[in-house]
């Protein structure tokens, strides 16, 4: 909210420089975002939090400033010299008291609509509001000054009997800005016997607008149901200075004062005269009183204050403190009407904290026991995997979780089956990524001028399937990695990561799926734990199912060096067509219990046939191997290989 300093000074003496004032306001919870000069006027731009509609006005800010600086607050000038006529103003029929629990209304005649005087125009402009004419300007001026919005109808355009009611679905009204707006059910509207004349709390109707021919006006100063105003504002996508105030809990006692203040200004600036009483309706508001236990100050804030300190802190803000008739250790705190946000004792603690000054608080550390919740005992596998990948030369990437339709179709993913947000701000951020691959490929593209690229990302992959344990769409944690290194190197990285876990891994080939779904897949008890796939342009993609791995124990076992020496032999063979290496090595391993380890030593293509050399480690944990044992095992292997059609190469 924009606060011109001289306007503020009409209510409170300001003895400090604007910068100092801004600091004092900040520490008490009203942030000054900017101090600027508009036409020579110093203007504070305040961030007003939604709980403090009382400070959405010059007068309300002055009230805070007076308390902060220990100055007196001047009341708004609403004294009327002219006597009020006894005639009642035009009646307003309210169909539902909840929509408009209180209001003031008054009729004025003899109005001469013209430009506002310069002083008023200057204030309005400095406060960021456009000057329209002297009548409309007064309504805006008083709204800015006292925080109470109001509306002036041209009585000449109204056909008797005004009714305020909730809109029916689909009703339409044309507002002052000449836009026809469809209304949601329950929006507050005012109609005369023929037409809708006001979208109450948001914007007046074009058909009852004050213009240069207006002679008589009806000024309505209401309190509206904040929820109804907010719903209408969201539905019509219309936010006005008025709706911004009406959608919050306004001071319920301000409307009579605001009406008088406006009448006074209309008499002075628009030649108006009263043609009715200023009539106010609504239940009488009694001051709210809270029982406040003194021990809360120490228990919640951690500071020690005497009752006198509390009186000194709270009284300038308009609170009245008395010894409680109920408890000795309590105060009875009466809350000023404009502080509609004060409901529970903690709200009073906030008043104490912000005026005492949080920077004057002691800095202590929590004294309680350190909790031993079950999460403490779970391994942090994300950090474990991250460290291992960093060591392997992989750089951590983070991509946007929201992707575009093109991102999906580039990977042949059907957008129809992808989780989507309802109202994207841009087509770039519309779908929730179903795979980490999308961002990882982008990471390669971003750095395409370089070689040796290795990236990984840990994040969620989303799908439209509903997870029965949460009833939410499935959002599983995964680790994706991409590399321009060779397939075998990347596979080695994935296998190294898997070796950190207590798993019994089976490797199998997956074909025929989408690119990144073809390759090898590692399973543990038929749960897929990892995948490695070749991508075009010499990139390789690896994927780990962290959602699953989180529940797997870590492999933290030490295997002692064998006491007896191994025998190591190489065996060269031609792979039968369409045969996979994993099938050969698994077959060799199951030949004899002495086969301890099989590794690929060399591979090449010779006369159109795939030739491989395997290095076989024979080992007996209990004794030194004899030549006989090894040759027996070797023969078994050769026989098995022969059966498989993998001829041992003798050269």
């Amino acid at each position, binding site marked *: 909210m924009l606060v011109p300093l001289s306007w503020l000074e009409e209510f409170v003496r300001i003895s400090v420089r604007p910068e100092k004032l801004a600091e004092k306001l900040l520490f008490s*919870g009203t942030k000054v975002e900017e101090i600027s000069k508009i036409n020579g006027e110093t203007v504070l731009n305040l961030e007003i939090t939604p*709980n403090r509609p009382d400070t959405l006005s010059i007068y309300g800010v002055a009230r805070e400033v007076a308390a902060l600086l220990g100055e007196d607050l001047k009341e708004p000038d609403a004294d009327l010299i002219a006597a009020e006529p006894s005639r009642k103003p035009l009646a307003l029929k309210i169909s539902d008291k909840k929509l408009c629990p209180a209001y003031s209304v008054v009729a004025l005649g003899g109005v001469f609509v013209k430009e506002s005087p310069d002083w008023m125009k200057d204030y309005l402009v400095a406060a960021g509001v456009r000057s329209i004419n002297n009548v409309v300007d007064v309504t805006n001026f008083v709204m800015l000054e006292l925080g109470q919005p109001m509306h002036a109808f041209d009585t000449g355009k109204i056909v008797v009997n005004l009714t305020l009611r909730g809109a029916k679905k689909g009703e339409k009204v044309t507002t002052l800005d000449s836009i026809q707006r469809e209304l949601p059910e329950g929006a507050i509207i005012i109609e005369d016997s023929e037409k809708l004349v006001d979208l109450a709390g948001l914007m007046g109707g074009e058909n009852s607008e004050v213009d240069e021919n207006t002679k008589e006006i009806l000024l309505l100063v209401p309190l509206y149901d904040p929820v109804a105003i*907010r719903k209408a504002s969201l539905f019509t996508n219309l936010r006005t200075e008025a709706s911004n105030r009406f959608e919050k809990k306004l001071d319920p006692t301000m409307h009579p004062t605001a009406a008088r203040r406006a009448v006074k200004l209309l008499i002075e600036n628009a030649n108006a005269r009263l043609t009715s009483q200023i009539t106010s309706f609504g239940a009488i508001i009694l001051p709210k009183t809270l029982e406040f236990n003194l021990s809360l100050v120490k228990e919640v*804030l951690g500071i020690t204050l005497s009752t006198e300190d509390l009186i000194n802190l709270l009284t300038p803000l308009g609170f009245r403190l008395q010894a409680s008739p109920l408890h000795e250790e309590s105060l009875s705190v009466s809350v000023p009407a404009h502080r509609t946000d004060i409901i529970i004792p903690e709200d009073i603690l906030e008043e104490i904290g912000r005026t005492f000054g949080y920077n004057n608080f002691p800095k*202590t550390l929590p004294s309680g026991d350190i909790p031993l919740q079950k999460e403490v005992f779970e391994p942090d596998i994300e950090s474990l995997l991250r460290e291992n990948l960093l060591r392997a030369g992989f750089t951590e990437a983070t991509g946007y979780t929201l992707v575009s339709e093109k991102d999906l179709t580039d990977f042949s993913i059907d957008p129809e089956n992808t989780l989507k947000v309802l109202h*994207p701000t841009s087509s770039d951020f519309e779908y929730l990524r179903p795979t980490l691959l999308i961002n990882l490929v982008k990471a390669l593209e971003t750095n395409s001028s370089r070689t040796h690229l290795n990236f990984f990302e840990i994040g969620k992959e989303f799908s439209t399937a509903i997870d029965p344990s949460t009833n939410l769409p499935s959002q599983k944690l995964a680790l994706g990695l991409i590399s321009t290194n060779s397939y075998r190197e990347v596979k080695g990285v994935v296998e190294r990561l898997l070796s950190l876990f207590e798993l019994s891994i089976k490797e199998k080939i997956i074909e025929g799926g989408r690119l990144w779904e073809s390759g090898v897949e590692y399973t543990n008890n038929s749960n897929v734990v990892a995948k490695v796939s070749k991508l075009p342009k010499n990139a390789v993609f690896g994927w780990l199912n962290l959602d699953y791995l989180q529940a797997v124990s870590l492999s933290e076992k030490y295997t002692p060096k064998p006491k007896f020496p191994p025998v190591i032999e190489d065996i060269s063979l031609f792979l039968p067509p369409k045969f996979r290496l994993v099938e050969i090595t698994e077959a060799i391993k199951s030949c004899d219990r002495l086969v301890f380890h099989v590794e690929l030593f060399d591979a090449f293509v010779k006369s159109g046939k795939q030739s491989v050399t395997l290095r076989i480690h024979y080992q007996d944990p209990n004794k030194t191997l004899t030549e006989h044992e090894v040759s027996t095992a070797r023969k078994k292997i050769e026989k098995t290989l022969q059966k498989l059609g993998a001829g041992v190469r003798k050269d």
Partner: protein
Amino acid sequence: MISSKQINDLLRSLAKEVSNSNSSEELETVRIKYLGRRQGIITNLFKEIPKLSLKDKKALVPSLNSLKQEAESSIEEKSASLEGTPKVSKAKTVSSVDVDDPTVPGIKPQVGHEHPTIKVINEIKEIFHYLGFGWQDGPEVEFDLYNFQKLRLHKDHPARDTQQTYYLTEETLLRTQTSNMQIRYMENHKPPLRMLFPGRVYRREQIDATHLPSFYQVEGLLVDKKTTMSDLIGVIDFFAKKMFGKKTKIRVYGHHFPYTEPSIEVEVLHSSGRWLEIMGAGMVHPEVLKNCRIDPKVYRGWAFGMGPERIAMLKYGIGDIRLFYSNDLTFLEQF
């Protein structure tokens, strides 16, 4: 004179020769043959353009252009796919250059780089671990109930304006804060509690140097029989000194959040001499405790929330938040 048949023939022979190249050297020969600056076949065709009639120009120049483009892109593509072999040998060549001069520049090792956001999150975890905090994350697609309603942000609450929200349906949304985890955690655990909730959050905002549609957040929560605002301020002060250096100054002022009462915001004095906001915090509102089946008459709590990207920006002097999601190595390799 150029003819369209000639262009078509060239396209075919070029494709064949490019695909038959088995090394960068062979490919380079092909490139020179077609695109060489002096005698390249395609280059020479371009030299003939001025001699063409206007009609021929109109007919042939577009196809000449596309021929040139095709040549360039196919060679480039092939060169990328050939890189596998020469890439290694290139690296070897560089590292095997052995100059007999001790001032020869060192060769940088191939290492992985931490992401600054995650690095900062890990630092935050470590700082709070010292104070007995654990951590947990959960759903990013969340019910309105957990992201807003249980935190006293009912459907018509004006404070929802400050958290522009991506909805998926009327009741599910992308969480705007990791407070959903505070609720879920409190519902399932008995105090005392000390937890951090790091994770991704989403705001329906236009992207610019300080705003992103999705970013990280770290929230913290402590619930115990005895704890106070001065504990909260003491912990934040400890955090700021561990994160930014032991001489770091903080200042605290009142603020408003619907889920904490009283609420505060915290700024640190930046080396530039300006105070910069780093977090919002406050005492957990008694209604929020009650919503999570914790008795506010017995327990009190406090909570805070901060943006690790923002902390990283302050700490390292990074000016544009979009860099964190660029995955540009010139940025990442500095961490």
